[in-house]
């Protein structure tokens, strides 16, 4: 065989392997058709998610909120969870007290849906709904869009949130990501395969009777927040660059929608920026870009009738009250709750 022919065959073989890498994964589509659970439904945020089986909306939460008819509802992630003791706050404010909708590892999409679906659309009219956040979280719409959390507060269709997410995910990276996802439908495969992988070792680890509750026990009894060791570096990534361009981020954030719902329903909203872990010799360092971002955020919120409170630089929250990362110590929780009550007369008027 001639040298050029051999060379051609070698190139064809290389091309075959490259094509194999690109084309074989398309088989996932066929696998999905054969294996996909019948109850997989289109996602409520189709711009970033394929059809999957979702966890049900938490109507129990709505029922208990309705029953309690609290004057204040607090929404946030573990930053709020480690700071606010809702029972203690209820005792301080009296009346119908406060309810907390804190979900560790949640982000603005969750906070928005909790506000919309568990409060406003459920017909609740508390005096104030308070959102706790860090730095630029409120406008970082793609921060922690975790289906396991969102499912509990999302209705079957969430066109407004989907539009916001789609607008946010418009960059080249997200476009490419979306195109690959649509082509291979790998997230549909993941939706049924991952639970199988997660659950399979349960059968090898516990007797038949204990299997049902093992994963819950692991999550709720072994890996609890209280069981973790202090980690100063936990979750301390500081934002920078485009993440701090308030004017650019605002239109693709849930913030205008939260304010619109607030104005429409007459429920006042407040936003509390919790203080990140301070330095040993003073408050947490802030870049000029972050200071400018916070200045614009405050102006925007206040001009739209919302209350803004900034914990940054609070001398009553020195480094010594912090546990891991930006979380505060459990022992400081009641003290923070009191500080929050005392330093926010506008909220608790």
């Amino acid at each position: 065989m001639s040298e050029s022919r051999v060379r051609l065959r070698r190139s064809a073989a290389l091309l075959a392997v490259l094509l194999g890498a690109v084309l074989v994964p398309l088989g996932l589509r066929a696998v999905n058709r054969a294996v996909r659970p019948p109850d997989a439904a289109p996602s409520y945020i189709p711009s970033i998610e394929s059809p999957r089986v979702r966890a049900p909306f938490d109507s129990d939460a709505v029922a208990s909120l309705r029953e309690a008819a609290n004057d204040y509802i607090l929404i946030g992630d573990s930053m709020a969870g480690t700071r606010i003791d809702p029972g203690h706050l209820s005792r301080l404010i009296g009346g119908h007290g406060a309810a907390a909708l804190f979900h560790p590892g949640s982000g603005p999409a969750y906070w928005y849906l909790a506000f919309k679906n568990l409060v406003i659309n459920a017909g609740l009219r508390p005096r104030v709904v308070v959102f706790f956040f860090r730095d630029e979280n409120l406008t970082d719409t793609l921060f922690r869009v975790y289906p396991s959390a969102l499912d509990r507060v999302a209705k079957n269709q969430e066109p407004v949130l989907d539009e916001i997410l789609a607008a946010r995910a418009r960059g080249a990276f997200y476009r490419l990501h979306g195109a690959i996802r649509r082509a291979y439908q790998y997230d549909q495969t993941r939706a049924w395969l991952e639970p199988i992988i997660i659950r399979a070792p349960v059968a090898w680890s516990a007797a038949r009777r204990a299997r049902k509750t093992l994963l819950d026990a692991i999550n709720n009894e072994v890996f609890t927040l209280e069981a973790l060791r202090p980690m100063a570096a936990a979750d301390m990534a500081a934002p920078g660059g485009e993440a701090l361009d308030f004017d650019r981020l605002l239109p693709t954030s849930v913030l205008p929608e939260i304010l619109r719902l607030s104005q429409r329903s007459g429920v006042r909203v407040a936003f509390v920026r919790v203080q990140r872990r301070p330095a040993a010799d003073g408050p947490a360092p802030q870049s000029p870009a972050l200071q400018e971002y916070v200045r614009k955020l405050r102006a925007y919120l206040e001009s739209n009738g919302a209350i803004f409170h900034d914990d940054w630089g609070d001398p009553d929250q020195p480094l010594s009250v912090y546990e891991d990362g930006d979380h505060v110590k459990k022992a400081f929780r009641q003290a923070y709750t009191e500080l929050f009550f005392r330093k926010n007369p506008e909220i608790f008027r």
Partner: protein
Amino acid sequence: MIFASLDFAIFMVVFVAAYWALPRRGQNVLLLAGSYVFYGWVHPWFLVLIAATTAVDYGAALGMDLRPARRKAFLWLAVAANLGLLGFFKYFNFFADNVAAVLAMAGWHVPKPALHVVLPVGISFYTFQALSYVIDVYWRRTPARRSLIDVGAFIAFFPSLLAGPIMRATTLLPQIERARRFSAPAARDATLLLAWGFFKKLVIADNVGVIANKVFALQSPEFYVLWAGVFAFGIQIYADFSAYADIARGVAAWLGIDLIKNFEHPYLAKGPAEFWRRWNISLSTWFRDYLFLPVAYRISDRLPPERRLRIDAATWAYSGGMILTMLTAGLWHGASWNFVIWGAYHGVLLALARIVGAMRKRRRRTRRWLAPLQIAGMFLLTSLGWLFFRETDLAQLVRHLGLSPFESTVLGRRTGAYLFFLALLYSIPLWVQSLWVQLGGRDLGAAMVREEAQPVPWVVAAQALLAGLLVAGILVLRSTTSLDFIYFRF
């Protein structure tokens, strides 16, 4: 720039296309420029350090050539400059902390000088690579190079720049200097190796890494939970580090350059010495050639020849040299006492294995049935080492070592079993691959085939299918928690 990013994918496509369109000299200029773009992508100031290292080592090697009477002075200048930079950026805070702690014990409370400097990623790797060049020139194993471009491209060679393998001047520089030809068979092997590398990183290492991170975030893990976490970490670090090496070799092969294989199925080792012949091969051979052998020879020269405790002088020299070398290797990994303990532990293991081996030499017989037990035993010893490596808090380490399996709760036992099996499940492809190679199958990481008479159709079809399955696996099972390559820290 990191491998698993869109930035790198675009960089790589553009780079490879431009690279093969250029003649050799142009390729080397592009290699140097591309490596600097790659390295300075996030922190451009890192480039100052690597450029300084290059200038010093290039100049020192040339100086040895031009002024042979001052060879030693040039060598020490280069060694001091390289280790000085490495020491400053990597060990300053460690040194300052420990000095302050010792002074505090003596009653002097001196404020620690705080230096908030980012550790330049890859500095440990390229410093050692650069040192190998000057030392080899000093030992006359390789000539000093006249081309700054070639030396610069050798030190900053981007595929292996951040986490190895640490290449020797005698191996990589000649490849950079000679004309390279695109090899479709090598690119085919490299594509498969890249897919396997990314699979190991994104699916295996990152998923089991989440388990290890969760366990080591616990304040008081029970015995079984802790050791499940250690097992997960053992898998994570192997999958993670070998993945980087595979990706580096795959990328380099697309550029017509062969990098050495850095891992040889280390968890199949039957003893400590074999483990180190299979684990991070480029680093262990670096330490062997540039530290252990000179030290062991020196100790050997000074020891009286008679046997002590029925052990000959050579074995004592080996043991002393090995413990010193492994202590240094431990410190190379990071400025922390747990790495020193890890290094000392492996040094003692190696020394003990050598001493026991020397004492039992006459009675040694090959017992094949013992091999699985030896592999399992070495895996357990390695895992104990990973506990030292992973646990940075010494108080916690002492607590972990005092844990008893009999004091564990039922939930603790079940959680440990669950985490162990979950880590095992994610790592099945890793074990299957090792078993496949053990049974005589072709290793995905074997040397790239540059020349072949003709592609065999069924082999090509199998490669295409495997590459596709690996990509599908990455798409579906990729961990949602993206972890940095562990060795970026070193």
